């Protein structure tokens, strides 16, 4: 006689309790909701655009723009330039201010970050105050402040400040000599390339020598001589022989305005100042955190090996700190690039001001303009983060 054995097979449960089935159900609901949302938005947009008689498509990029831009890196005029050209002008202006800004903010940020860790109490405190003040005030307010502070104190064009060497300063910006490249500039460039290649070869040789014999060679001085000295020497020789590769066009002072030369817009200066000082505060914190992340044992070990404090910093601390610093540093660079879009508030003709401002208002083609502009910023961020991921994989500590 057998007693009823209860647990021969697991109890039959509804398939609705299967996590897989539920997962599929949730995802189908999500997809349906998203598709519905897009469908409603698209049909409404088509209907609204038809009613407002706004053209669609990217054909407007070939239409004549009909407006002037105050700073153009390529040839652009109201009569001949198209909206597509205006886009490129804006994009180049954004890239210009971002590139120059990144260069200066890196220097300032590292200086302040290291200053915050200084043993000198005064230096550390001043750096801390700088960081706290700059970080806690919106960039927009700082930009407007710089714009007024920079622009407001400058004289009218007719009373331009003469600063010598062809530099003039007035409320329309900083005017300076414009270099005109002669045909011999290629010789100087060739000298620069030779200098760079020579440096690389010398560095490799010096490193090999050091690994084999332990002797150290003056790498820094030779690099300086080859990269800077060689082109300058070539230039001087060319200039003395009467084949000067660069001539300068000086700005001339007229009755009301300056003509010729190169002009740096006050908007550009204000935007650059604002971006550099603001981002430097964040980079300083990144640098500080990176240096603090290198454990004290590393410094002590380097000291016990007999390295000098300078060598310790250069050979032991900084290489390890960089691993921590570089990812957040890159995101600060991206932030600076994205923040350069605040140019629209002070009228510097960057991508957003030119394209999302003037072009959008003139054509009314909101969707296309917004898609293109966002696409540019998105591409910059995604490419940067892609490169960062590769870099991170290379420098990450390989654990046993």
């Amino acid at each position: 006689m057998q007693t009823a054995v209860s647990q021969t097979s697991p109890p039959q449960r509804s398939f609705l309790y299967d996590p897989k089935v539920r997962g599929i159900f949730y995802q189908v609901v999500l997809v349906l909701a998203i598709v519905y949302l897009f469908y409603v938005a698209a049909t409404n947009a088509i209907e609204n655009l038809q009613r407002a008689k706004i053209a669609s498509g990217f054909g407007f990029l070939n239409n004549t723009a009909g407006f002037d831009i105050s700073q153009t890196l390529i040839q652009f005029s109201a009569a001949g330039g198209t909206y597509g050209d205006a886009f490129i002008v804006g994009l180049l202006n954004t890239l210009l201010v971002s590139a120059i800004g990144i260069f200066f903010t890196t220097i300032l940020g590292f200086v302040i970050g290291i200053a915050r860790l200084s043993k000198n109490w005064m230096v550390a405190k001043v750096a801390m105050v700088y960081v706290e003040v700059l970080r806690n005030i919106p960039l927009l307010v700082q930009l407007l402040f710089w714009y007024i502070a920079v622009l407001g104190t400058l004289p009218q064009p007719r009373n331009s400040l003469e600063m010598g060497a062809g530099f003039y300063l007035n409320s329309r910006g900083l005017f300076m000599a414009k270099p005109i490249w002669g045909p011999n500039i290629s010789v100087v460039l060739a000298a620069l390339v030779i200098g760079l290649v020579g440096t690389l070869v010398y560095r490799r040789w010096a490193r090999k020598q050091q690994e084999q014999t332990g002797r150290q060679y003056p790498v820094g001085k030779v690099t300086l001589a080859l990269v800077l000295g060689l082109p300058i020497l070539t230039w001087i020789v060319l200039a003395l022989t009467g084949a000067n590769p660069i001539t300068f066009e000086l700005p001339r002072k007229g009755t009301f305005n300056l003509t010729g030369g190169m002009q740096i817009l006050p908007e550009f200066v204000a935007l650059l100042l604002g971006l550099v000082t603001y981002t430097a505060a964040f980079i300083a914190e990144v640098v500080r955190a990176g240096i603090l992340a290198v454990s004290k044992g590393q410094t002590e070990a380097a000291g016990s090996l007999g390295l000098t404090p300078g060598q310790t910093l250069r050979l032991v601390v900084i290489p390890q700190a960089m691993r921590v610093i570089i990812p957040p540093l890159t995101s600060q660079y991206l932030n600076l690039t994205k923040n350069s879009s605040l140019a629209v508030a002070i009228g510097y003709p960057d991508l957003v001001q030119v394209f999302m401002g003037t072009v959008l208002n003139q054509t009314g083609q909101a969707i296309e303009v917004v898609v293109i502009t966002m696409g540019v910023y998105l591409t910059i961020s995604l490419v940067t983060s892609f490169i960062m991921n590769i870099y991170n994989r290379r420098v990450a500590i390989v654990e046993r």
Partner: protein
Amino acid sequence: MSTAVDIPRFVRANQVEALPPPNLARGPIAWIRENLFSGPFNTILTLVVFYLLYVTVPPLVRFLLIDAVWTGTDRAACRADTGGSEAGACWAFIWDKINYFIYGSYTVSQRWRVDIFFALLAVGVVWLLWLRAPRRDLGAVYFFWIFPIVSYVLLTGGNADFGLRFWMGFAIFGALVIALFAFFAALLKTAMRPALIMGGGIVAVIGITLALVDIDFGLAHVPTSLWGGVLVTLLVATVGIVVSLPFGIVLALGRRSKLPIVRMASVIFIEFVRGVPLITVLIMANTMLPLFLPGDMTVDRLLRPLIGTALFASAYMAEVVRGGLQAMPKGQYEGAMSLGLNYPQMMTLIILPQALRIVIPGIVNTFIGLFKDTSLVAIVGIFDLVKTIEASRIDPNWAAPTIGITGYAFAALFYFIFCFGMSRYSLGVERRLAAGQNR
């Protein structure tokens, strides 16, 4: 074995005289020597910093305080040609315009409503941020549900006047929701009571919200075009935090989900928003939102940037919350599962309470960023604090050379006080949370 016996040794026969005590090992002068003048390089640095301070601080103090103009009713006080002073900041201008900077053009007789909004906001913030406040769960309900509705009614005047047809529609909708819950409970063969309570609860929450918006409290209607100044700045920041925290949590859970489509949708949203500048999102909300809605529907001018900032902040909040979720040890998840909890129970009862607690500093930092970013709504024409200052700056009544700088100094001070306070708070919480680890 050879020892070191043959090494000559020297043993001192008489005691060496004690060294003189180090002069000034402590005391202010020693401290100065140690910290400021410990070597030639340090001395030069100190002197350079002193010089920089000498160049910047005294003129700043003179401009902002000593030479500043404190009283006056129009530009005469701040213009040299009318006998005023141009040397310092024109605080009289701020004082004259202070109501405009706080309330914008909000109807003067109704400004007490804005004051109540500020007070309610302060109560909610303190309740949530003060870690030892009683019943912080009720605080969350207050901040994320009651406070937004009350503020909406207070600021706009409420009285949406939905009409009978709407309420009949809502009744049918409510019945359908409850029926749906009952249907699923029957299908899954689970208890009917909790399902009905849950369905009824959802319908009740929505119903109460709509009813409060609908009821006529006798408050005059104030259109959003009149709002401005600090009111709008705080409003944008508040809406940003109230929306972005729940939405950010949902996005973070989505990004950590095992379901591929859910994960992908979250990742695309987060990375897209984080990859573009806020100003483009605002312009998009401003120009494209009206396009995506049916032709007869208009979106309030103030609502558009609110939606933009809320979406923007959600993506950043999601990444902060994700950090907290990833910091949870795996044992917490496994422990919850071994107790037989399902996913919502595991998240709401075990994971999120711990994860959110450790990311409070991150949340506050995101909020500081959001608070600073609210100033960007000025660019799309919303009268926040920055825009009201911009507008007052060109008022001919106050046309004077120092007006612009004074206005921005005031804005800088306002933002600095808020942001610096919050960053100190977040540092304090960080230290408290780390205290458990410091043994």
